[in-house]
């Protein structure tokens, strides 16, 4: 992993960037936290532990939805109005954290959510929540394909581009455009998730 980590990032030529931040594609200090979360999720599923399953699903799902909406609706538009060096500097510090955070939250939410639904009987065809849960699978499926097939590859490609001595602004702009194009879709999906989950919780 050393070749992924301790490399210089930059957003412009050397003359314009006297003190470029060090950029890690994968923040190594975050890995123990991710490992602890994954271990806790496995323990919750293995023990069929109601409190832990609920905790992981609510905390993970709440953060996933909130971060998606906050980044898409608040941070994204602000980012779009910043100067290019400011945007690049923000991106260099923000995206490595997202590389670890979002997949961990998604795994935490989905794995425990399925187990929780099974334990509470919501997956039974006789349950009034069954239909809502199938709709939620579809919503999550769309978000998963967008996140895994479009957003995450672009995120990591931007980070690799920014590690180069002279990053190509055209490549970064091309990849960042994906975020703008998909922010609306994931925003609608997250609102749908909120509606579905509040319906499930109150039926």
């Amino acid at each position, binding site marked *: *992993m050393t*070749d*992924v980590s301790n490399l210089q990032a930059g957003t412009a030529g050397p003359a314009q960037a006297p003190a470029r931040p060090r950029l890690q594609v*994968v923040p190594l200090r975050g890995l123990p936290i991710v490992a602890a979360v*994954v271990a806790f*999720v*496995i323990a919750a*599923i*293995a023990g*069929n532990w109601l409190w832990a399953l609920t905790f992981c699903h609510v905390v993970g799902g709440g953060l996933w939805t909130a971060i998606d909406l906050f980044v898409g609706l608040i941070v994204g538009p602000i980012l779009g109005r910043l100067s290019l060096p400011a945007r690049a500097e923000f991106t260099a510090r923000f995206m490595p954290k997202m590389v670890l955070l979002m*997949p961990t939250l998604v*795994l935490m939410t*989905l*794995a425990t959510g*399925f*187990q929780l639904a*099974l334990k509470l009987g919501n*997956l*039974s*065809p006789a349950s009034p929540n069954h239909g809502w*849960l*199938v709709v939620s*699978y*579809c919503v999550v*499926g769309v978000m*998963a*394909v967008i996140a*895994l*097939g*479009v957003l*995450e*590859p*672009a995120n*990591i*490609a931007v980070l*690799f*581009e920014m590690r180069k001595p002279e990053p*190509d602004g*055209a*490549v970064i702009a*091309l*990849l960042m455009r994906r975020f703008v194009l998909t922010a609306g879709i994931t925003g609608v999906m997250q609102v749908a998730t909120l509606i579905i989950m509040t319906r499930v919780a109150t039926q």
Partner: protein
Amino acid sequence: MSAGPAAVPAPPASRRFPPVAEVTTVSLGLVVIGGILMASYAPRRPPLAVPVALAVAGAVLLLAGCWLTARLRPFDWDRFFLVFRWALLAYVISAGVIAFAFIKDHTRGAPLAVVLVMLVIYALDVPLIIAFTVARYSSPAGHAGSLPDVSQPA
């Protein structure tokens, strides 16, 4: 006479590639649909015809993505494999946790086999998309001169 177009270095942003990411994303979408179909029947035993068809189609598209990638010359293979192996590790862990949940919930026999095949496709699809997306914007080590359009078969 001026030099032909091949003498002008193609910037990475404008270099054209075969639709590896698109094909592999469709493969990912198919296994996600298959997974949704199977999960919608839990805890009952799901009918397997459609999930199996989706898994086979997903596997074919994954192989097509691999085949298209393998033919790329020049291509930054060092960067591709650097990203691929770490992404593979991450998504094998992710797929392993999902598989564990299914096994824990007493999924057995053919449904478990179909789920595991879908998870293998998922765990290969995502690293392939990520590694291809990173490597396509890199210049191969030691490669000087123009980078050709590789979107069409040679």
